């Protein structure tokens, strides 16, 4: 981040925090933010974004694109707790033809393909005919934080708010597949939702999981998030939940499940959403002839949520430092911080464990030993022993950023 961008972002964040605190609104579900614009910390810009409240069932969101909607969660929201409110959960659609009128009495989910019996399930069949399960899990866009890549890359220019954590309620995909009866020889399961391309011969959005993954008992078909039905733009009435995997697999408005006896070769699985098959999916800008594979498991990340970049803190006095972390495809083992550019690390206290795939809050008392400028680094190590890297990855699609975050503050 350039110094100028950091400063602008800090001012905006302070304004937001100040405005919210002024009406005692930090604990409210819908802070009455007067701001209609903010600046994201994107190197060399453009960094101005509107805050929109124009989307039904949604609160204030950072407008990245109106149609099809790309709405980013304002980062302050992540300081409220580990569950991201539905009305500020980020939104990302591929195609512009999104049904806006869903009749719960008419909606059906089809299960077909390499199965003994094709099913057409009503929402009643799903809600009341199968065991209900709940799971906390982070949904994160493959390209979350793409706007921070350097050199910059095309695509949705997200800062860090294309992620959220919810308590998902639904049924196991395994139970639905068992009801249809998967035939021997099945290799993958392909998922399709109701969104359609504007151009008729464009590739319909579809994603696939390997059959064993689809039947692992953790992949869910969710009908509720945080105890309520999903906002339409978050995938009402049914959304696939693939714990630990990037959100591209979490198909919204899920309407069609096809069991395949051949590997899926559709565009969205084979060509789009692929990453270099290298450590951290990282290559050098301009590097070619790299083997590409479908993006898959998430990697650990951690963020400070209660202090803004550029903020002034009291020297030689304890300050509460708080944030969130997630392990990616497993739980959080530890979150550590450094104020000496990574020479030494200190541990933080982890909050309640709401499930290994969800956000975990962390907190510590930080004392900056003398006046001056500091960078606060935070690093999550997950329960598989994988820690965030100290240098940023790079790939042309802007996927899988998880570098150790660094925040500039000054002690006075």
């Amino acid at each position, binding site marked *: 981040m350039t110094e100028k961008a950091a400063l602008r972002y800090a001012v905006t964040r302070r304004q937001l925090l100040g405005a919210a605190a002024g009406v005692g609104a930090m604990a409210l579900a819908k802070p009455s933010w007067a701001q209609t614009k903010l600046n994201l910390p994107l190197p060399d810009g453009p960094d101005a974004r509107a805050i929109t409240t124009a989307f039904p069932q949604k609160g204030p969101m950072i*407008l990245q694109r109106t*149609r099809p909607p790309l709405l980013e969660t304002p980062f302050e929201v992540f300081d409220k707790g580990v569950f991201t409110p539905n009305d500020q959960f980020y939104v990302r659609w591929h195609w512009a033809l999104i049904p*806006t009128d869903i009749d719960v009495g008419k909606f059906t989910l089809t299960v077909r393909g390499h199965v003994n019996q094709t099913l057409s399930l009503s929402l009643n069949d799903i809600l009341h005919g199968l065991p209900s399960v709940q799971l906390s899990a982070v949904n994160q866009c493959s390209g979350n934080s793409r*706007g921070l890549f350097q050199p910059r890359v095309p695509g949705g220019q997200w800062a860090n708010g294309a992620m959220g954590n919810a308590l998902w309620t639904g049924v196991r995909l395994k139970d639905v597949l068992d009801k249809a009866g998967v035939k021997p020889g099945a290799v993958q399961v392909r998922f399709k939702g109701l969104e359609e391309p504007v151009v008729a011969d464009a590739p319909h959005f579809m994603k696939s999981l390997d059959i064993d993954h689809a039947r692992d008992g953790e992949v869910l078909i969710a009908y*509720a998030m945080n105890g309520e039905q999903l906002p339409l733009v978050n995938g009402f009435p049914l959304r696939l939940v693939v714990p630990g995997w990037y959100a591209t697999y979490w198909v919204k408005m899920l309407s069609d499940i096809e069991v395949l006896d051949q590997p899926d070769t559709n565009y969205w699985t084979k060509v*789009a959403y692929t990453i270099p098959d290298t450590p951290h999916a990282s290559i050098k800008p301009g590097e070619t002839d790299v083997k590409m594979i479908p993006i898959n498991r998430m990697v650990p990340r951690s963020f400070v949520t209660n202090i803004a970049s550029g903020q002034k803190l009291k020297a030689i006095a304890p300050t509460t430092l708080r944030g969130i972390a997630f392990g990616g495809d497993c739980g959080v083992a530890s979150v550590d911080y450094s104020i000496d550019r990574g020479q030494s690390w200190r541990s933080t206290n982890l909050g309640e464990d*709401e499930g290994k795939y969800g956000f975990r809050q962390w907190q510590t008392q930080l004392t900056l030993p003398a006046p001056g400028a500091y960078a606060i680094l935070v690093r999550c190590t997950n329960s598989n022993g994988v820690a965030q890297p100290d240098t940023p990855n790079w790939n042309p699609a802007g996927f899988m950023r998880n570098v150790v975050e660094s925040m500039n503050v000054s002690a006075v």
Partner: protein
Amino acid sequence: MSRNLLPLLILLGAASMPLPATAFELKSVKIDLPDSDKMFEGPGSDAINNNCLACHSAGMVLNQPALSKQAWTAEVNKMINNYKAPVAPEDVGAIVEYLANVKGAK
């Protein structure tokens, strides 16, 4: 429905988020999504306005970083080849030219 209530209630008891103490029901939804009337402006914007706004609003493009002409050419070709954007062949050059002028790497 009552036979399904018990397991749900057990789950509710174990859950950290409060849910209504009744079996979950969904309600039909009908909404209107906002649209954008933003257009590309300035000289040479006709081709991009005529060819690109059917699939996505202009804001997405205007929020992009500065990219080289080569990168913009690749983006336009991706829209045509991968996403089947029906761009008239004679307009491709004008679209790339506009993007390279307005959003070009300096």
